[in-house]
Structures are given as structure tokens and as C-alpha cells.
């Protein structure tokens, strides 16, 4: 079985307090903030590794990111992926989700046939939750989002469980396909020192725009249909009216207020 996992390097949320909004360029300055695997992509990778253990085959990691994201791909290799491809080119920079999905799709086309592509449902930075379905559309395969369970038995259609409001749907689906997962699907494994040493032997290939076939114009800032007209910190309503005093006084004042408003 051939499984491809789409992994997005994101700034480690532990250090998000250091993110700065540059008012001039309207971008977030993430310099010096270490990257990590987007949290849900760890779950996607775990699902892929579990399937490989069960069915055999290989797990490939694909990422579109700046070249300095290689440590993040090393992390994915240390978790157990066999091989990683980093799609990196200034031409790809600034892609919206259509552009991102398109670039990932041409990279995957170069990798050849696959049974399954796994994504996270959403990232923690852009967080649009749009890339997986758009990737499937470019590749012409079916896709299921919000996947919280997957049952694979050889020779039979696969069963994917997809979360919906207050419940789930169960669908029968045949490879090749794209699935995007939610957190409850599994618990990602820990990486040991041994795994990290082993990962040193595994290849990371870096592909530029010249290594793939871009027959459509959607890649990068210039090709993307959406534009970011503005980026700003959310508006502050202004300070609340504060109720002060020792805790008992605060409680009494608030209760009195709620009483006058008819809540008690």
C-alpha cells in the first residue's frame, strides 16, 4: 500500500506569544520561532504508520514550505515515514488554498500512484480546512473530511467515519482517496532518540517549480484567486466595567446586579 501524508510545518504554538504583526507588510513575523508538524498532521501520519504496519507498503511525506523547514520533515521521518519530499520554490510562496492544493497535487502526480492521501482536517495557523478537499478535486479522487475512524480490509471497500454535528456518517469508499482526519482518530506515537538517529539515514528530496509540471496558473501569490486585502489584530471592545472589592463583596455586587436585571 502506498500512503502519502501531507504535512504542513507551522510555528510551534508554544512560542506564539512571540509572534508579531508587522503593520507595514501586513504579515506575521515568525523569525526565530521554531517550526513543528501541524498538530493534526501528526494524527494523519500516525494513521498512515498504523496502516503500513497492518498492510505493508510505504509512507511518504509531502510538504510545501520554505527550504528551512527540513527539520520538521526530519521529525516526520523520525516518527516513521520512509521518505519525504519538500516542495519549495519562491514561485509557490503566498499560495492561497487553491494554490497550495494545486502545488501539492502536481508534486503528488510526480510521485506516481497512491492508495491513500492523509491530511489533517485543519492547520493551526491559516486554519482554513480547505486544502484536503481541494487537493482531492485536483487529483480527481473522492475525499472524506472530519475522519475519526478508518477500517481497511483487503479486497473490500474501506469504511471511513466522518464527524458531523451531533453525530457521524459512515461511508464506503474505494482507493485511491484523500482523507482528512480529526484528533480523535488516534494518539500519535512518541519519537525516541533511536528514531531520530534512524531518520538521519532517510532521504529528504527538495523539489523546485522546475521539478514538477505546472500546467495551470494557480501557484503562488500571483496565481491565487484570493488576496489578503488586510491583516490585523482583532478589534478590542474596550475594557469591561470592573467590579472590585474582596471576593465576598465582588460576589454580592454581582448578585445584586443580576437580581436587578431579573436573573435571580
Amino acid at each position, binding site marked *: 500500500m502506498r500512503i502519502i501524508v501531507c504535512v504542513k510545518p507551522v510555528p510551534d504554538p508554544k512560542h506564539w506569544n512571540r509572534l508579531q504583526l508587522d503593520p507595514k507588510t501586513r504579515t506575521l513575523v515568525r523569525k526565530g520561532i521554531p517550526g513543528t508538524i501541524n498538530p493534526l498532521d501528526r494524527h494523519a501520519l500516525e494513521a498512515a504508520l498504523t496502516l503500513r504496519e497492518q498492510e505493508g507498503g510505504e509512507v511518504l511525506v509531502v510538504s510545501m514550505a520554505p527550504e528551512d523547514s527540513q527539520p520538521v520533515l526530519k521529525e516526520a521521518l523520525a516518527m516513521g515515514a520512509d521518505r519525504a519530499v519538500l516542495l519549495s520554490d519562491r514561485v509557490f510562496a503566498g499560495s492561497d488554498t487553491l494554490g497550495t492544493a494545486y502545488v501539492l497535487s502536481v508534486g503528488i502526480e510526480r510521485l506516481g500512484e497512491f492508495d491513500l492521501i492523509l491530511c489533517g482536517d485543519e492547520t493551526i495557523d491559516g*486554519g482554513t480546512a*480547505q486544502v484536503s478537499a481541494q487537493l482531492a*478535486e485536483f487529483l480527481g479522487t473522492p475525499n472524506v473530511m472530519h475522519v475519526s475512524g478508518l477500517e481497511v480490509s483487503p479486497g473490500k471497500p474501506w469504511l471511513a467515519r466522518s464527524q*458531523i454535528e451531533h453525530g457521524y456518517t459512515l461511508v464506503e469508499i474505494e482507493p485511491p482517496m484523500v482523507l482528512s482526519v480529526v484528533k480523535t482518530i488516534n494518539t500519535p506515537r512518541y519519537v525516541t532518540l533511536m528514531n531520530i538517529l534512524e531518520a538521519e539515514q532517510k532521504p529528504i528530496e527538495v523539489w523546485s517549480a522546475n521539478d514538477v509540471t505546472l500546467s495551470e496558473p494557480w501557484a503562488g501569490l500571483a496565481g491565487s484567486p484570493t488576496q489578503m486585502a488586510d*491583516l490585523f489584530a482583532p478589534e478590542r*471592545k*474596550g475594557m469591561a466595567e470592573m467590579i472590585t472589592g474582596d471576593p465576598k463583596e465582588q*460576589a454580592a455586587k454581582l448578585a445584586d446586579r443580576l437580581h436587578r436585571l431579573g436573573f*435571580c
Partner: protein
Amino acid sequence: MSDQVESKIWVFVEQRRHVVAEVGLELLGKARSLAEPLQWKVAAVLVGHELDALAEMVLSFGVDEALVADDALLEHYCNQAYVKAVEGAIRQYEPQALLLGATAMGTDFAPRLAARLRTGLSAHCIDLDLTPDGQLLSLVPGWGGNVMARISCPKTRPQVATVLPGVFPVPEPGRARGRMVSLNPQLQPEDLGYRVVETKREEAPKSGLETAEVVVAGGWGVGSKADWTRVEELAAALNGAVGATRPPVDEGWAEEKQMIGQSGRTVRPRLYIGLGISGHMHHLVGVKSSELSVAINSDPKAAIFEHCHVGLVGDLKEIVPPLVEAIKQYSQQEPG
């Protein structure tokens, strides 16, 4: 009857088993107010099977056209079939904008459709504007709600956006004046891509958060499962429902269905009280329509104090017990 569709803004009104998602109605109201200055018409798009009654219903919300893609193969939601069902009509009638709810269905259907049409899509918007020249500007939260992006789609049409449920009010229904147009989807079984085996939904809880007049929500600052009773006691004293931020749900103090915010419920209570909640946008988008919001937090710099009406700086463990007592006393005084 001419089948020419004139509407420039189309709103996808999602339904499962003939129950519509409320966000679809919210968007009908918003679409009408966006369209008015430009004198554009607004259409509701329904996809499914046996939709006549629903078409009547959406028409009562004042839309000009109800576009109905009806086929037995569309009985269960399947993204590829849904895309096929509306793609032709979009290419033929060229709407300027298409709005969908950012629900489990909408977040899956919209990206697939936008990619098929090779057009731009903005994600789980919390506000929408339409410029006089017909550009849709959407406000998209990113980076965990720490920033907002204003997204436009200058070159391609339609401009597609998913919108968070609960951002806009549900309009009042009135007298229907629009007409129904059938989209004739003409699907084949192989258009489906996958087969829905079953759909399970639990009954929506009766005293649901969404309809509660009073919501008391607890955050990570509540401290532990044992301390969670403080949230429940305060809610009980006020006859309210209990909500939560994500950490208490992750910790198992509260249930998933109690989570409020971007990935959870949207509430519109008369009174919201947040206990030990820092005030991330992820959570705040779900409570921003509260009439009166109160926060109790030990950190005077907590962001929630910049978003709520009334703030108490202090340890919730010291404030909540006397608060519950005082509220109970008032309630007992109440005659009858």
C-alpha cells in the same frame, strides 16, 4: 415560465433529512441585506431529494429564487455528487457570490466546489461586506483568532465564502414572492465517489446551549474535574446551561457538546458568565452575541476583560461560592 436564473448572490441552504441547518437561513438574511444596495437578486440553493416543501419554506424568507437540485442520488450528502449537481448551473448563470455555512457539510462541499470552478474561497468568515462594485470582502480569523484577515477574490467568479454559524441573526419569515427553478442535476450512480452506509445523529439536547437564556461557561482556570461543580452550581442557581472552552473538554471535565466557539456551539444568551476563561477569539466568536457578558478571571490582563461588559478580577474559587449563595437567596425571596 422562463428558467433563466437572475440572482447574483446564491446561498446554499444545507439540509439533512429535510431538516435545514439554521446557518443557511442566517445567510439568506445577510445575503438580502448585502444585495439590496446593488439591487441584486438573491437565490437559495437546495440540494437533495423531494425538496418541494423546503423550497416553499426558503421562499418565505424573501428570496427571489429557490434553485432546487433534486435527485434520488442526492438523498444523502456526497460531495462529488453535490458539486456535479450545481456546477452546471453556476457556469450557466454566473452568480457573483456563493455563501455556505461553515458546517461539517459546508466545509467539505465548498472547497471541492470552489476548486472545481477554479475560484477563490474564504474560510469560516465572521463578517461579510459587498463593495459598490460587487467585490465580496470576508473577514477570516486565523492564527487561533489572534489575527483577522480581510480576504477578497478580485479575478474569479463566483466569490465563494463559508460563514460561521451564529454570526448573523435568522431573519423573520414573511410572504413568499419568489419562484422555484429546477436545476435538473442529471446524475449517474458513478458520480457519487463514495456510498453513505449510515448517518447517526443524537437528539439535540432539550435545554440546548444555543437556546439557553443564561450560559455559564468554564475554562482551563476552573482547575480540575472536582472544581467543575462550581460551574455547574452557578449555572443551576441561574437556571442556565453549562458551556466550556476547549481545554476542559480535552481534560474530560466537560463534554464535547458543551464546547462553545469556532469548533463548538454558538450561543446567544441574555447572560453569559465566563469563569477562568482567558478570551481567545476561538471561544469568543461563539459568545459575541450575548446581551450581557461577565468574566471572572484572576489575571487582570486577561483578554476577556477587553471583550466583556462586566469583569471581576479574582480567584473564582473564592468568588463563585458566595455568588451562588447570594443568587439562591434572591431567588428564594421571589414570590411564587
